[in-house]
């Protein structure tokens, strides 16, 4: 546990160093001279923390450019874009929602998210691994099968050949996380990034079967982008080493 926390802290420091380097030398990033105006980015809700940070860094690296975000569920965003919302970039939490958008450039998978076991700080329920989810005497929360994290959990349990005994099927991943951070359940399956975001109150336990349900995040510029150069520059920035560092520090995996 401590090693993981230490590692995360190190990664954060590394990321911050990288970012501040980038901010110090705006001239070093190649597209900075040609980019101007406002870049409108539609991004999945789970990217709120990292993209807000990256937007600020991008603005610092490209003086005079403003990044505006619209964070929401990926399916809602896809609908808005198809209905003609003036977006330059779309970053989706699932390839399915990216496919729904018709007029776009070639999508690139920029990060992936995996499930992790979240337990209250100190692990009072003595959860060791996925097998404890089959124990009727432990309090367990999972996402409902109708929402993405629940579908991913189903895949993981099938791969492990286990039948979980949940006490509650939560309506979204944040609700499951809340039950853990309040100590109401001994464990829940949430995304790795959620565990990191709540690391004051929950500990994470990795498990090998997580590889069976990897959630991929694609990003693409949009054909009807009002600011096409800005769109391309922002996507390049997310795909750059600086972008990767911030995303990795938040717990996202690299594809």
């Amino acid at each position: 546990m401590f090693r993981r926390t230490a590692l995360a802290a190190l990664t954060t420091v590394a990321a911050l160093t990288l970012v501040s380097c980038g901010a110090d030398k705006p001239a070093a990033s190649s597209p900075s001279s040609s980019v101007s105006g406002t870049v409108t980015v539609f991004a999945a809700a789970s990217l709120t923390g990292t993209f807000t940070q990256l937007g600020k860094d991008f603005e610092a690296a490209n003086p005079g450019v403003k990044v505006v975000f619209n964070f929401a569920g990926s399916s809602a965003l896809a609908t808005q874009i198809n209905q003609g919302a003036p977006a330059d970039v779309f970053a989706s939490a699932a390839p399915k929602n990216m496919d729904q958008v018709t007029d776009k450039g070639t999508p690139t998978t920029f990060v992936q998210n995996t499930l992790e076991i979240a337990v209250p700080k100190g692990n009072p329920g003595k959860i060791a691994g996925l097998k404890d989810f089959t124990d009727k005497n432990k309090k367990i929360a999972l996402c409902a099968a109708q929402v993405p994290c629940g579908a991913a959990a189903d895949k993981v349990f099938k791969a492990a050949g286990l039948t979980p005994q949940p006490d509650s099927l939560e309506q979204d991943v944040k609700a499951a996380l809340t039950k853990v951070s309040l100590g109401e359940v001994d464990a829940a399956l949430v995304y790795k990034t959620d565990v990191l975001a709540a690391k004051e109150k929950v500990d994470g336990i990795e498990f090998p079967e997580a590889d069976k349900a990897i959630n991929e995040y694609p990003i693409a510029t949009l054909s009807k982008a009002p600011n096409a150069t800005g769109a391309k520059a922002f996507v390049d920035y997310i795909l750059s080493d600086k972008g990767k560092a911030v995303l990795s520090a938040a717990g996202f995996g690299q594809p």
Partner: protein
Amino acid sequence: MLLLPALLGLAFLLIPLIGLLAKAPWSTLPSKLFSADVWTALRLSLVCATAATALCLLLGIPLAWLLARGELPGRGLIRALVTVPLVLPPVVGGVALLLVLGRRGLIGEHLDTWFGFSLPFTTAGVIVAEAFVAMPFLVISVEGALRAADPRYEEAAATLGAGRWLTFRRVTLPSIAPGVVAGTVLCWARALGEFGATITFAGNFPGRTTTMPLAVYLALETDPDVAVVLSVVLLLVSVVVLASLRERWISGLR
């Protein structure tokens, strides 16, 4: 002058319900309706709403009596506090219940260590969450009835030698019966539709804590048609219950 806004108000309330009925998938409705999940959720909803109402009656009528008749300081403040759950977003109510009655809550912690008993994720938890949100409706309408009732009848009963409890049972309660019934109906309806506090405090597990509103919410994620069917069922049940009660009991209010 008043007719036009009144009609607009009526349309505002009714058109969404008509839309629900118009969009209901009538052709596939029977097959969706007779799935076991729907009945499990409906039965749980009815049981929990009724149990929550019983709990509210047991605790709410004495509380209303205290507010209307009791000689206690700061009565206005207490009355305001009683109505807090009315304005509190139900999700916040659910979190508050978790902080008090949850496994690590102020009281819940002791329930867990002494009796090995914890409310969240149980049917009892659903009842507690619904009662918390619905009780103010009962208290307010019973208190209103008590204040409107003439206390001289109670005084007369007292002069004739009736004790406090006998007076309350034989004189006060019958005189405020319509108010109690109206409050009960409101309280039951509120409990039946409860969503936020329930899903936050009691979680969601079929047959144990998945009431109709929770089932509707989750069905919306994947199959909106099923969500509409569930909503229509809930709508019909509440209309039938409220209409039959109104005919039989609430006529006294008019």
